[in-house]
């Protein structure tokens, strides 16, 4: 079998996986910063409950999450039906559904990193900035975020790696349509099921390389590495 014949579906699956993981990570980054800051700095009733709820995807089986998502955004689900009727959008079995699945599963990684990073920022620095006349949003952009950035980015890279590897929830809501929703990890499963060992080997190699690269980068960004050593 010529290798070029193998490379093409693998290439497509890789590109799809990267696209899905990038979008999922971007969504997680925005939401993770917002919720991480909220949980780190604001005192409100049910704060720890909210943290627990948002962390749930980390411990729940991805298939269970996928089922919840299916119920929510499926054709008869409350959100799915609304999207269908009002906007004419059908999410299920599209790459956007894969994005949602990956974003939900990987979200706790950004949240945990962001919350810890924001909590580590000395509130006195923020107070100093307030007294110097800056608005709360400017203080966030100029003091809090730059000081928490490494921790936020570390969690974000982990989330990217997790999104790349997402399987269970993605399969439930996006299915396995080659070239459309068949990501790397799902393509591996399909290749093994079909007995295409060469394809499986290549896909596994690509996935491993991407994940190792991301993890090495994430470790480099972990704050205070040298201090702890």
């Amino acid at each position, binding site marked *: 079998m010529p290798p070029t014949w193998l490379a093409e579906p693998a290439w497509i699956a890789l590109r799809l996986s990267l696209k899905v993981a990038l979008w999922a990570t971007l969504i997680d980054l925005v939401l993770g910063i917002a919720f991480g800051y909220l949980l780190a700095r604001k005192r409100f009733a049910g704060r720890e409950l909210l943290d627990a709820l948002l962390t749930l995807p980390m411990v729940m089986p991805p298939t269970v999450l996928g089922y919840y998502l299916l119920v929510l955004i499926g054709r008869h689900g409350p959100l799915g039906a609304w999207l269908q009727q009002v906007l004419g959008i059908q999410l299920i079995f599209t790459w956007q559904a894969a994005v949602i699945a990956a974003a939900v599963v990987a979200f706790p990684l950004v949240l945990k990193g962001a919350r810890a990073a924001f909590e580590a920022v000395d509130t006195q620095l923020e*107070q100093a900035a*307030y*007294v*110097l006349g800056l608005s709360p949003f400017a203080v966030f952009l100029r003091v809090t975020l730059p000081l928490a950035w490494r921790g936020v980015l570390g969690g974000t890279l982990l989330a990217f790696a997790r999104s790349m590897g997402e399987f269970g929830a993605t399969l439930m809501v996006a299915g396995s349509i080659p070239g459309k929703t068949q990501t790397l990890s799902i393509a591996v499963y399909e290749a093994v099921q079909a007995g295409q060992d060469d394809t499986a080997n290549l896909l596994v190699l690509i996935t491993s390389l991407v994940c190792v690269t991301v993890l090495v980068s994430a470790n480099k960004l972990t704050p205070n590495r040298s201090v702890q050593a």
Partner: protein
Amino acid sequence: MTLDVDISKTLEAAGRRFTLRARFQSDSQRVVIYGESGAGKSMLLKALAGLVTPDQGRIELGGRCLYAQEQGINLPPQQRELAYLFQDYALFPHLNVRQNIAFGLQRGWFNPASRIEHATVRHWLAALELELVAGQMPHQLSGGQRQRVALARALAASPRALLLDEPFAALDPGLRQRMRIELDKLQRQQGIPMLLITHDKDDVEAFGDHLLRMEQGVLVDTALELKGVVHEK
């Protein structure tokens, strides 16, 4: 400048209760509040700066009302135009000396550029002999330099008054006296009213034109005490 304060605040945490009660007036350019740590000095200073909201009362500075619970006035720290010198200076660790000094001069969403040119920054770099370290980061500075940067950053914003929280506690004993002399000179040059909180008797001697004492959350005006007037409960 007249400072007129009458506030109270109660904190409750882990079954312990702490009540701050402060009532004083001062026309002095140099007010020192002296007391043991944990007496509530920092809380009072933060209330003046708007970082802590009292339960009730009012704060007036130079005829301007900063806080009045009854009228629902509570200016945010940004509008009080005060400078606050934190005990460990709270310099922004991700910004160099120049950027730290320029921090309050540049509004908006972005920090000053690392090579920012600004007349006020240049003035304060020169006035506090920081020109040689202008491009350095806070962690590269000595204790005395850090305090000078904090002073420059505070004064660059042309505040109405300077609030200082144990300004010399973080310094070596040898350096303390030198920095006291520097601050003394600077305050006289600028003619800026200052309020300093401390647990160090030497600070009282150097700056205590008007001395107040803080004991377990209650402020005692020593000027009134001398006249035999006991602070009412």
